[in-house]
C-alpha cells in the first residue's frame, strides 16, 4: 500500500499558448482531507481533471495509488462535479443516478442487481426518501446528497469534489461536510475538494493546496493559507467595508 494516494511531479498543462498548470509537485497522504484553493482561472479544475485523466499533462507525472490516472479502476475514484453543471432536464430518478456509480452505465431496468447497494448508499446520506424522485425536482442540496450517495456507493479510495458548496444553502453545506468526514473516517478514503471558501478549507481540511497556476503552497491550512501565501495567490486578501454617516 502506498503511503501517498496522489503523487504529482513537475506537472505542467499547456492549452495552446495558455499555461494552465506550472510545475505542480504534491504528495497527498492516504486518508487525508485536502482543500484546493485559488482564484478563478487558477487551474483548480484543470488539476482535478488531470487527476481524473480527463486532461493530459503536457509534461510531468501523476500517480494515483501508484498508477497513472488512465490505469486506475473507475471504482477507486469518486468524482462529484458541480451540481449546477448537471443536466437537470434529463428524465431520471435519483436511484438511477446512484446506480450509475456502481454500474458505470445508465440502468435500463429498475429491478437492477445493484439496487440494494444503491438504496443503502442513499440511506447513508439520509436521502432514501429521494430515491424515486425525478432529479429535476430535487433542490441543489438534495441533488448534492444523491451525487454523494452515487460516489460512496462504489466505496472509492479517493473522492474528488468540484466546489461542492456551490448552489446549496448553509445547512446543506454543513450536512455535506459531515457526510464527507463520516465517509472519510469509515472508509479511510482521501478527499480532494476544490473550494473558494478559505474558512471551510481551514476548518475541514488536513492540507491545503493553494494554486494560482503555479503551486503557491501545500501543507497544513495554517501554513498554506498564511497571509503572504494568500497575497501571492489572490493579489490582495480583502478589505474592510466602512460606512460613513453624515449627521446634519
Amino acid at each position, binding site marked *: 500500500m502506498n503511503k501517498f494516494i496522489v503523487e504529482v511531479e513537475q506537472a505542467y498543462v499547456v492549452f495552446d499558448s495558455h499555461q494552465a498548470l506550472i510545475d505542480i509537485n504534491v504528495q497527498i497522504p492516504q486518508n487525508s482531507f485536502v482543500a484546493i484553493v485559488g482564484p478563478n482561472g487558477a487551474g483548480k479544475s484543470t488539476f482535478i481533471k488531470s487527476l*481524473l*485523466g*480527463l486532461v493530459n499533462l503536457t509534461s510531468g507525472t501523476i500517480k494515483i495509488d501508484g498508477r497513472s490516472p*488512465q490505469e486506475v479502476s*473507475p471504482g477507486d*475514484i469518486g*468524482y462529484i*462535479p458541480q451540481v449546477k453543471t*448537471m*443536466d437537470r*432536464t*434529463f*428524465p*431520471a*430518478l435519483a436511484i*438511477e*443516478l446512484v446506480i*450509475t456509480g456502481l*454500474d*458505470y*452505465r*445508465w*440502468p*435500463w*431496468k429498475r429491478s437492477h442487481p445493484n439496487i440494494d447497494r444503491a438504496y443503502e448508499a442513499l440511506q447513508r446520506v439520509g436521502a432514501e426518501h429521494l430515491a424515486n424522485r*425525478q432529479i429535476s425536482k430535487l433542490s441543489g442540496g438534495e441533488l448534492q446528497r444523491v451525487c454523494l450517495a452515487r460516489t460512496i456507493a462504489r466505496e472509492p479510495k479517493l473522492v474528488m469534489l468540484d466546489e461542492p458548496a456551490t448552489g446549496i444553502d448553509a445547512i446543506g453545506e454543513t450536512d455535506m461536510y459531515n457526510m464527507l468526514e463520516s465517509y472519510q473516517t469509515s472508509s479511510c478514503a482521501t478527499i480532494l475538494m476544490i473550494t473558494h471558501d478559505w474558512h471551510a478549507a481551514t476548518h475541514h481540511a488536513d492540507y491545503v493546496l493553494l494554486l494560482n497556476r503555479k503551486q503557491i503552497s501545500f501543507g497544513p491550512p495554517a501554513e498554506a493559507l498564511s497571509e503572504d501565501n494568500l497575497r501571492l495567490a489572490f493579489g490582495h486578501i480583502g478589505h474592510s467595508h466602512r460606512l460613513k454617516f453624515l449627521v446634519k
Partner: protein
Amino acid sequence: MQRALIAGVLVGFLASYYGVFVVQRGLSFLGSGLAHAAFGGVALGLLLNSEPLWIAVPFTTIIAIAIFWVKKRTNLGSDTAIGIFFSISMALGIIFLFLKTDYSSDAFTYLFGSIIAVTRTDIWSTVVITLITIIFIPLWKRWAYVSFDRELAETDHLPVDRDDYLLAILIAITIVVAIKVVGIVLIAAFLVIPAATARLVSSTFRQMTILSVIIGIFSALIGLIASYYLDVPSGATIILFQAILFFLGMLLKSLRFIIG
C-alpha cells in the same frame, strides 16, 4: 403501399430511437445538417446516374464524422460545426444538380418524400440499418449515460468519443434511408418531434425511449395511410400528425401541472 408501410414503420422506429439521444444532447440541429448533407449525396448520385442511396450513405456518413471531428478539434459549438457542413453540402448539392444537364424530377422526390418512390433497395437498406440498430441496442446504456453527463462517463473510462462517432454514423444512415418516406426538408422533425413529445410526459430516460419509439412507429403508420387516402405528400402528413401528438403531450403536461 405495402412497401411504403414497411419502410415507414422501420424508419419511424429508427428516427424516434436515435431521436432521444439527439434531443437529450441538444443536437436537434444535427438532423437538419445531416439531411442537407444527404441532399449533397443524393445530388451527386443523380449526377453520376447511379442509385442515389449508395452515394448518399457514404457522403452523409463522412459529413457526420467531419462534424464531430471539427467539434472535438476546435472550440466551436455543435451548431457552428453543423452549420458549416450543412452549407458546404447544400452548395455541393446545388452545383451537382446544376451540372446535371437533363432535368430530373427525382430531386423533388428526395426533397419532399414520396411513398410511391420507395423501392425494394430502399426497403432492404432500411431492414439492414434496423438490424444493425438492434445489434447495438446494448449501447443504449452507454449512450444514455453520456447524454446525461459526458464528464462522468469519461471519468468512468467509457469510450465516449468512439461512441459519439458510432452514434453519428448510425444517425446519418438513418437519415439517408428515411429520405424517401419523409423527404430531406422534413427529416429533422421526424428525428426530433417523437422524442420531444415523449420527453414531455416521461420521468425516466427508458420511458422516454419506449414512448418515442411507439410515437415514431404509430405516427408513421397513421401518416402514411392518411397521405395515401388524402393524396397528399407522406412526409408532411406524418410530421403534422406528430405535431398534433406533441401539442397533446404539452396539454397533458399542463393538465398534470394544474391537477398537481
